[in-house]
């Protein structure tokens, strides 16, 4: 690419982050820093039972012995874990039971983000758990879902109301010893969502959690736990945004999914945390451990992610395919622009017989962005006839960005079929000129071409989300092509 194209690239990729506003709220926060005392206070604020505090302390003590992982293709400045606020909650008189109880400022904030907390005004077919900083502020449609035996609540509430389920499943897929950030999260997680779909129930609406970081100097550490009993089905969506700030903020989450026989969970993410400014100042550090287990035969987990935000993304939504004939899917679009870095991918662990997995990863790099796909496909000894198909495509916009692919394949069973395809391409000048010649300007052309490139993944999203994601891709790349 020659020098003349840089202005075009810059022009197309310098879009403004739309969700960077701050809501002025009275916060109930703990002081900065991390120690056992803070954890005890946090647990007390959440009215937690003793057993939960014990889990937190165990995780914290283990975390102290751990080292930061350094294998990712990321440059991350040293994070001072004592300089972070681990609990900050918008103050409200009481937990919001009905819509009228929710602080109007919070309602306004979520309205601005396109999320209505008022069930009357809600997009049909969607139930939302809205999480601001450390707590869930409102979960919609809880009652009507409860009629079907579905539990959809904030994690804190589930700890109090459904301790047996939480004790049984929490940490069963991602134990606190799993990795540095998982241990940290297990020690200080403050809220998140819990979903339980009982045997034979097909959840009639999309469940979603909207995560919003608002307070400064605060880390967000949420947990999501989804359990689908025999024959159950749920589609779950997650969206994220944060204000623009010069200082980096930490987000370290855990998502666990447990799927029993013949059940299916579809998990979709549109991650749009503040990515930092065009010089790389500020932005969210996003360290997330997401993993699901297909426990029963013929069970299925499908991950779809559109990652456009965060200064740094470290995230590998994975599937453990234990049940025979279980299926794992991973569809991903990751965009890095300006100084963003992403190291993302998946792990597909084939344990059961006739297990199948598919990986479709589309990386898009622009500006000085660095985008890595990291994946593991493991076929263990007893996984007869396991099949995997992986496709990793990288699209480069401009000549200062990078795309990297780190596929790992470990096969211990001769009957397995594992295929891996990878491509790297640039948006062609000829494609752009072709669009120009039909009257389409370069910026719109790039949006069209990128959305076309990502279409296979976007098609996997629920429709309303797909439209949002398409716009988001275009905005994320405003200012970037040649």
């Amino acid at each position, binding site marked *: 690419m020659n020098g003349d194209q840089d202005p075009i690239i810059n022009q197309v990729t310098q879009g403004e982050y739309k969700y960077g506003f701050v809501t002025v709220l009275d916060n109930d926060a703990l002081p900065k820093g991390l120690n056992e005392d803070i954890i005890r206070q946090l647990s007390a604020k959440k009215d937690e039972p003793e057993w939960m505090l014990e889990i937190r302390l165990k995780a914290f003590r283990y975390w102290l012995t751990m080292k930061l992982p350094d294998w990712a293709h990321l440059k991350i400045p040293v994070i001072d874990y004592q300089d972070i606020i681990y609990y900050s909650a918008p103050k409200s008189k009481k937990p919001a039971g009905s819509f009228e109880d929710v602080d109007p400022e919070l309602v306004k904030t979520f309205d601005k983000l396109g999320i209505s907390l008022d069930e009357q005004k809600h997009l049909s077919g969607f139930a939302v758990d809205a999480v601001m900083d450390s707590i869930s502020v409102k979960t919609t449609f809880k009652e009507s879902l409860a009629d079907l035996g579905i539990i959809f609540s904030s994690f804190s509430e589930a700890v109090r109301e459904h301790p047996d389920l939480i004790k049984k499943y929490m940490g069963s897929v991602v134990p606190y010893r799993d990795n540095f950030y998982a241990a940290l999260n297990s020690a200080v997680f403050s809220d998140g969502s819990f979903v339980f779909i009982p045997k034979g129930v097909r959840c009639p609406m999309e469940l979603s959690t909207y995560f919003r970081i608002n307070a400064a100097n605060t880390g967000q550490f949420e947990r999501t736990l989804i359990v689908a009993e025999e024959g159950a089905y749920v589609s779950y969506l997650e969206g994220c945004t944060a204000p623009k700030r010069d200082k980096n903020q930490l987000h370290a989450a855990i998502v666990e999914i447990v799927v029993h026989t013949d059940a299916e969970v579809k998990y979709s993410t549109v991650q749009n945390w503040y990515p930092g400014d065009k010089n790389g100042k500020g932005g969210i550090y996003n360290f997330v451990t997401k993993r699901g287990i297909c426990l029963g035969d013929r069970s299925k987990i499908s991950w779809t992610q559109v990652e456009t935000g965060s200064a740094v993304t470290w995230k590998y939504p994975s599937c453990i395919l234990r049940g025979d004939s279980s299926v794992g899917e991973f569809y991903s679009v990751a965009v890095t622009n300006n100084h963003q870095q992403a190291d993302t991918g998946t792990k597909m662990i084939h344990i059961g017989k006739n297990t199948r997995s598919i990986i479709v990863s589309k990386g898009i790099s622009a500006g000085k962005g660095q985008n890595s796909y990291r994946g593991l496909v493991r076929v263990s000894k007893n996984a007869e006839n396991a099949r995997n198909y992986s496709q990793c495509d990288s699209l480069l916009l401009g000549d200062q960005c990078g795309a990297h692919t780190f596929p790992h394949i470990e096969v211990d069973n001769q009957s397995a079929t594992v295929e891996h395809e990878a491509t790297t391409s640039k948006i062609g000048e000829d494609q752009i000129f072709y669009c*120009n*010649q*039909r009257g389409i300007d370069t910026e719109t052309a790039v949006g069209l071409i990128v959305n076309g490139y990502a279409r296979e993944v976007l098609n996997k999203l629920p429709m309303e989300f797909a439209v949002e994601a398409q716009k988001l891709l275009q905005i994320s790349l405003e200012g970037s092509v040649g």
Partner: protein
Amino acid sequence: MLSIRNLKAAINGKEILRGINLEVNEGEVHAIMGPNGSGKSTLAAVLAGRDIFTVTGGEVFFDGKPLLGMAPETRARAGIFLGFQYPVEIPGVSMVNFMRTAINEQRKYRELPEMNASDFLKLMRDKKALMEIDSALASRSVNEGFSGGEKKRNEIFQMAMLEPRLAILDETDSGLDIDAMKTVATGVNRLRRPNNAMIVITHYQRLLNYIVPDFVHVLSGGRIVRSGDKTLAYELEEKGYDWIKEENQE
């Protein structure tokens, strides 16, 4: 409508067009013929605004306005259409989405409201029928996996959708068998209007049996060396391009 005056253009410092003069009026069809490397495709690309070529001299006016300073998308919106010799594939972008974006961008330029979905789909249906195009085409990605013939027909289909004032068809017949060429030519003829014009670039005379031009120009060495009516094309067919080259050197 189009007035080209002493146009010169180069690529990588090598001059390809060495002073082209051409006047095209409403309702006219001009054929530009010439041997390989004579500058035919360069002329088409320069008129469409392809920036790999540098204009080194001359002027071009389109409907009285200087053309050479306009961005390629502005030229398209003003009514210049280029039928590509090698249409480009855009994976994952459906023809419907592509055409709808193009039409609405052009309408915006002309200060018309966006076309709504049902009007657009009706237009698409009508034009497909007019161009005798397979109706599955609309749901496919732009040129992706199209055969050579399908790509060329898709160009003419886009021309029908956009109804340009000036269409420049760059070797639309190349790579087509006689039946495919007839279909393309029929499509083009259906788009001839008293208020638009066409420049048909071709290496062979045979296309001109089906798209009958008002004028024929022969390009050689970056200049128009001879102009005439359609009989010039027959003469060329008979004597070959060497005849022009030799005559030109004398």
